[in-house]
């Protein structure tokens, strides 16, 4: 296999965007081309989950490649639920690593605010089991709520720990221009004050409003290239060193130990093994905190902390910027936003910024190895990526 590098990156704000879906996709692509200095690509992958269902737009990649006047390069749309983004990066990685292509553009794009929030929630819920889950009215917040209750009872995680994740990620997002939520919150405000029950109501008990990611529009792009192409452009050598993917049962109730996220564990192991690193080598990570509980659990499953001790590390401040294992310096899905198909590419965008040392006020010092976990379904299809900065 050839080595694969990140030649260019681009992103839109994650927020409400009043543009057609193909423009939301094309803009970060344009930014990434300018960033890399490349004018031509060999292939395009576009990650998107809901175009066909909520934007009346199927075959998104064909629309985007023409909108960017990059025809006749090949183009494909990748749909893998909320893990579409990292899945598309994986396809791009394989295309360059195999020698089939030299320059591949990977875009993630989603426009969820085109419909009302309940419809958006219903659209994401269609990834659950149709007969054993969806039909009952199960949504992703509902699955996360049930999961959280088990985790609280088994490991002593409390609402306060969950709020600490939200506070940390909202604080990080204050320094991220592209983040959806620029709103600093405090535990006193969302849990202890007399107004807490109205400004932070239950959504899916025991999860509250501030445990949920927002519904966002947005796009992000990575251009992947071979070592030969990198020699011609003057860009930092950020290598996509490890790719891992694993699956689990579709219906959540079928899992033997319902508090384990085995697909996260396996995908992370594969990704780190391929890159030749251990969890302790990771200097900065973007984890898929669609719900605050997930940041805690993923930090355990990927190996940063022992099972059941993620919330203790959080208490000690180890996951803050400047801590031992900084997690979600971008604000994470919680505050940066969660345009489902774009999220995986957005996570990789942040890691590349961090490794290049271009993350501004939220920069993690001496970041050399970055890791992303893109969580599809309720943990039934997970893609993890490892990036390494080379001299």
């Amino acid at each position, binding site marked *: 296999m050839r080595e694969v590098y990140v030649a260019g990156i681009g992103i839109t704000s994650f927020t409400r965007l009043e543009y057609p879906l193909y423009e939301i996709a094309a803009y970060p692509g344009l930014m990434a081309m300018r960033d890399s200095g490349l004018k031509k690509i060999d292939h395009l992958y576009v990650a998107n989950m809901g175009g066909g269902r909520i934007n009346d737009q199927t075959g998104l990649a064909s629309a985007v490649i023409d909108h960017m006047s990059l025809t006749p390069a090949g183009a494909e749309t990748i749909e893998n639920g909320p893990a579409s983004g990292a899945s598309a990066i994986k396809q791009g990685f394989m295309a360059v690593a195999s020698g089939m292509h030299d320059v591949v553009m990977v875009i993630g794009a989603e426009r969820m605010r085109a419909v009302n929030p309940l419809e958006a929630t219903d659209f994401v819920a269609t990834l659950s089991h149709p007969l054993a889950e969806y039909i*009952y009215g199960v949504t992703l917040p509902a699955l996360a709520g049930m999961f959280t*209750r088990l985790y609280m009872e088994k490991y002593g995680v409390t609402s306060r720990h969950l709020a600490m994740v939200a506070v940390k990620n909202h604080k990080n997002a204050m320094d991220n221009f592209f983040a959806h939520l620029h709103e600093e919150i405090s535990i006193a405000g969302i849990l202890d004050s007399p107004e807490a029950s109205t400004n932070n109501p239950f959504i899916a008990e025991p999860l509250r409003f501030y445990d949920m990611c927002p519904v966002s529009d947005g796009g992000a792009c990575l251009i992947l290239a071979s070592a030969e192409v990198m020699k011609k452009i003057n860009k930092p050598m950020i290598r996509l060193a490890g790719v891992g993917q694993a699956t689990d049962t579709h219906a959540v109730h079928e899992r033997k130990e319902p508090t384990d996220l085995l697909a996260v564990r396996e995908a992370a192991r594969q990704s780190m093994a391929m890159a030749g690193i251990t969890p302790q080598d990771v200097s900065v990570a973007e984890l898929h905190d669609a719900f605050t509980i997930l940041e805690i659990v993923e930090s355990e499953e990927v190996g940063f902390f022992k099972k059941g001790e993620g919330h203790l590390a959080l208490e000690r401040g180890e996951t803050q910027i400047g801590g031992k294992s900084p997690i979600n310096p971008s604000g994470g899905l919680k505050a940066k936003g969660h345009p489902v198909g774009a999220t995986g590419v957005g996570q990789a965008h942040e890691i590349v910024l961090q490794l290049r040392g271009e993350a501004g006020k939220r920069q993690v010092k001496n970041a050399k190895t970055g890791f992303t976990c893109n969580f599809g379904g309720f943990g039934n299809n997970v893609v993890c990526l490892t990036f390494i900065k080379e001299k």
Partner: protein
Amino acid sequence: MDRNIYAYKCKRCGELHYPYRTICKKCGENDHNEFDIVPMAKKGKLLTYTVLHNPTADFETATLSLGIVQLDDGLKMMGQLDIKEPKTGMRVTGKVDVIRKTTYDKYYGMIFSKE
């Protein structure tokens, strides 16, 4: 009429499955003809639950209680809860009834209440 929800019992190794799958998860050697259809147990223990405060459009209620139940036959299943104050570990008993209505259709599924 007494409605049931069915589990799929592997003809080769006897492993029970819910929901239906094409290949047995345990012995891995079945094609889809090799399952016996057996009614699922209706009694069990509530493993975990949530009260959803924003159910989607087909549910014209303010809240929707959902839970995962460990059934007495060893299977687990998701169901709706008709229980005022659910507690994990409590005994529940299920009944198959209408769980979701759209303009033209009614869907049946398991609703659990206190045993």
